């Protein structure tokens, strides 16, 4: 029987990449300590800063919120109701779980209701727009990014926190390396610094494998939405995660090494925007003429253009 490395009690988990087995009590303790170390290592935020945690009702976002709460950070939650049903009441159930979690801990949860705010849920927005070729994931990402940034900015939060884990990051990195998407590769990291109009973004669970965040949620008794988003089926990111897990099976620690060595190489300057040779790159940001959020092109931002497009189509279908 595998024993806890700290106390000798029966272990509940063995992490092959760390050669570490832990019992329930020591695993929960280790997870919280490691998160704090990651926050410090990457200078994510301080205790006097106001954090807004993007909460989906899934294991990762609820786990990160739980840990930040235990560590004494000022962390409120933001749930974005996307209006996805998929025959399983997906959005309604995720919202219920996010609300239950916040209520049990006496935490503040802000809710943005997309169908309520904009008249249409994500599936309908995607159907009416030309984005995503029938898959709503691209529209969903755009809407979530816009709303998270709007809420963080309007409500005066310093940092937007997400529950991304190491498997999420490695799948993105792997996908970008396959395509050599250097623009994305140079920007990937555990922290995205604040820019005028954009809050800083931080991912405190970035050093944990996905099975470790799931283990934390299970052991802590956090009720999370187990069903996958109905639109995630066949997603490329899930395929990459499966592939990388097969690699991890043969080479324990492969995912961790891939990510950590990438960050190290980035720190050492191996990945740099070539424009930096002529001095620091200044991305010129404009104010969206409709919502006021920063945008790289003059005029309206991508979100407002989407809303215009969908509104125009909705109007056209009525005539």
């Amino acid at each position, binding site marked *: 029987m*595998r024993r806890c490395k700290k106390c000798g009690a029966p272990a509940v988990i063995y992490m092959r990449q760390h050669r570490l087995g832990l019992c329930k009590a020591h695993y929960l303790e280790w997870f919280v300590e490691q998160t704090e170390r990651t926050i410090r290592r990457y200078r994510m935020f301080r205790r006097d800063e106001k954090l807004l945690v993007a909460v989906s009702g899934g*294991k990762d976002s609820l786990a990160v919120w739980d840990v930040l709460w235990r560590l004494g950070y000022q962390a409120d939650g933001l749930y974005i109701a996307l209006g996805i049903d998929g025959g399983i009441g997906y959005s309604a159930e995720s919202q219920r779980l996010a609300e239950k979690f916040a209520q049990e801990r006496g935490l503040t949860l802000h809710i943005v209701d997309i169908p309520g705010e904009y008249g249409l849920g994500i599936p309908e927005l995607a159907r009416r727009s030309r984005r995503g070729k029938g898959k709503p994931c691209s529209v969903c990402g755009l809407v979530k990014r816009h709303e998270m940034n709007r809420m963080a900015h309007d409500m005066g939060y310093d940092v937007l926190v997400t529950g991304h884990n190491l498997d999420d990051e490695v799948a993105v990195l792997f996908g970008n390396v396959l395509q050599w998407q250097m623009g994305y590769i140079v920007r990937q990291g555990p922290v995205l610094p604040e820019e005028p109009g954009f809050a800083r973004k931080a991912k405190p669970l970035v050093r944990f*494998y996905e*099975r470790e965040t799931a283990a934390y949620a*299970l052991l802590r008794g956090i009720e999370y939405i187990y069903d996958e988003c109905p*639109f995630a089926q066949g997603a490329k990111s*899930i395929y990459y995660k499966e592939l990388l897990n097969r690699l991890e099976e043969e080479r324990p620690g492969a995912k961790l090494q891939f990510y950590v060595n990438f960050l190290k190489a980035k720190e050492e300057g191996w990945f740099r925007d070539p424009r930096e040779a002529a001095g620091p790159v200044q991305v010129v940001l404009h104010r969206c003429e409709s919502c006021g959020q920063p945008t790289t092109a003059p005029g309206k931002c991508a979100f407002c253009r989407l809303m215009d497009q969908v509104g125009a189509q909705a109007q056209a279908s009525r005539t």
Partner: protein
Amino acid sequence: MSERQVEKTATLKLRGQVYTVPAGLRIREAIQHIGLTPESYLPVRDGELVPDDERLKPGDEIRLVAVISGG
């Protein structure tokens, strides 16, 4: 299934599917035995998480929790 077979087997359950596997295998070997990647699942026995390098005892019932999410 006869009593004798039950003695030599254990079961893995995943999203309503039940798989019969030989007892004596390590849990991760049993997960591979049914064609899945152990890294993508957490094994739970009697409501408690168990390390996946533990050996299955005859009659063990293991629930597999899928850990991959995303889109």
